[in-house]
């Protein structure tokens, strides 16, 4: 579907926010789902690029992206009034938190974009635990705070917040809020998610993780984006599932840690 660009502006450093006019798509979108974007019609870089839906208010789809290569570089050059072809919303997103539960988003880098819409779906004020290499990659914290989320930060180099891994913030959170019920939402690099899954399972905590892989068709047709999902009933104990349509969000119990 052709969608016109309403705005495309820098958030900080290599991070940008783009808004598409896409009323019908926005009405159907939820946290954890993504849009599959054909940035332009070129014959050299042909494939679409997937981006989490950061927000879907006012008939607009908002995406927060980091410029990392040719496609995102070309996306950055787009101006209001230009258009892209969007497929979406794609995929299984995050479930809405139960009324009595504190949602905790545990994110790495641009993963913070994918969990943002949880801020609109929760009764209890939530928590964002956000990790990145350094302060330059810590994004969207003000937006979360404006929506009533408490934000805790960890950076590898200690340039902002706790020096260390984002998963190390979980113990502190549990200690600060004894007796509360939590539900965890994870989105970030694969090693971070695997570590998160291990910690949550060990502590008997529940949640959902967005586990994705390079995508090609984005509609479930090519089997290029598969991830290993636990299948205890099978001989291998796992099966490959398509992260684009069977995920990207999977229940913690279904996460397969090798």
């Amino acid at each position, binding site marked *: 579907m052709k969608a016109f660009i309403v705005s495309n502006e820098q958030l900080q450093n290599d991070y940008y926010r783009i808004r598409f006019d896409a009323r019908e798509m926005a009405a159907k979108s939820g946290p954890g789902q993504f849009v599959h974007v054909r940035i332009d019609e070129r*014959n050299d870089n042909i494939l679409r690029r997937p981006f989490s839906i950061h927000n879907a208010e006012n008939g607009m789809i908002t995406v927060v992206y980091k410029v990392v290569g040719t496609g995102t570089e070309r996306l950055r050059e787009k101006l209001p009034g230009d258009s892209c072809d969007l497929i979406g919303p794609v995929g299984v997103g995050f479930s809405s938190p139960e009324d009595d539960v504190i949602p905790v988003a545990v994110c790495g880098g641009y993963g913070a974009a994918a969990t943002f819409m949880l801020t609109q779906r929760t009764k209890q004020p939530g928590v964002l635990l956000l990790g990145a290499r350094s302060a330059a990659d810590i994004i969207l914290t003000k937006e979360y705070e404006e929506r009533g989320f408490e934000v805790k930060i960890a950076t590898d180099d200690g340039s902002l917040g706790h020096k260390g891994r984002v998963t190390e913030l979980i113990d502190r959170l549990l200690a600060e809020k004894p007796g509360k019920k939590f539900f965890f939402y994870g989105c970030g690099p694969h090693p971070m998610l695997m570590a998160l899954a291990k910690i949550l399972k060990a502590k008997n905590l529940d949640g959902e993780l967005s586990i994705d892989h390079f995508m090609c*068709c984005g509609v479930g*047709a090519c089997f*290029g984006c*598969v991830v290993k999902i636990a299948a205890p009933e099978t001989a291998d104990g796992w099966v490959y599932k398509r992260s684009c349509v069977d995920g990207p969000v999977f229940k913690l119990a279904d996460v397969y840690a090798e």
Partner: protein
Amino acid sequence: MADLSVDFGKFTLKNPVMTASGTFGYGMEYAEFYDLSRLGAVVVKGIRSIPSHGNPTPRIAEVTGGMLNAIGLQGPGIDKFLHDDHYLPGLKKTGATVIVNMWGVTIEEYAEVAARLDAESDGITALEVNISCPNVKAGGAAFGTDLKLAHEVVSAVRNATKLPIITKLSPNVGNIADFARAVEDAGSDAVSLINTLSAMAIDINTRKPKIANKFAGFSGPAVKPVAVRMVYEVSRAVKIPVIGMGGISTGADAVEFLLAGADAVAVGTANFVDPFAPLKVIHFINEYLDKNGFKSVAELKNALIV
């Protein structure tokens, strides 16, 4: 309006545009975009006797002008394919013309799958015998790059089914026309080409191959000239119909194949870029025929001026 139908002898397609196996899932994935019965045929992803995991990841990489894939034929196996609503039963309900792409790791398995499909052939128009996947060790390249084995496997399928068979040829051979002749001799009712070209890409930062399988199949716009040449050669080597594919993303690309000698075409990688690509191709062919005074798509087969 020109006559778009294509006569394959044992069956007829309403128009010459199908989807290439592996690039259109099991059809249902695209049913939400448009009415699948508008296509000449839906060719589903390769089916074998048992479920298979496919290859480890990463399985895909973008390269200039196309992509590499080493999916390794992940699939549900024949039982699920025949009886689960996500597969054949669901696809049949859309009214689509269905061609089933199939494979095995032994000649016996090819024959077994063909026999199973023969026994439950309701709603299946033809089989496409894949002897050319570069991404599985046995069953793919092994059969499609050895003239004797290619003949044997197609003969075995021929003996196992009355359904029309299309043999999918590998471009990774010295002389593709020899393979076309061999499978024609073995009883194939048509040939389709090309499957993907064996290829490789390396990430210079990690110094690892971009695809876990190391080698992968190259497809997309960049392979078109190779495919057109092969279709030209094959269409002159055999009497059976030829289905041309490889890099078709526009109607103009498809007309090139039809002029080179193809009776029909398939749209592959372009589906990933634009789900509506096959419909746009049908529309363009129709206009091209009218504009240039052709009464039927069949006339293009002999319209090349050399």
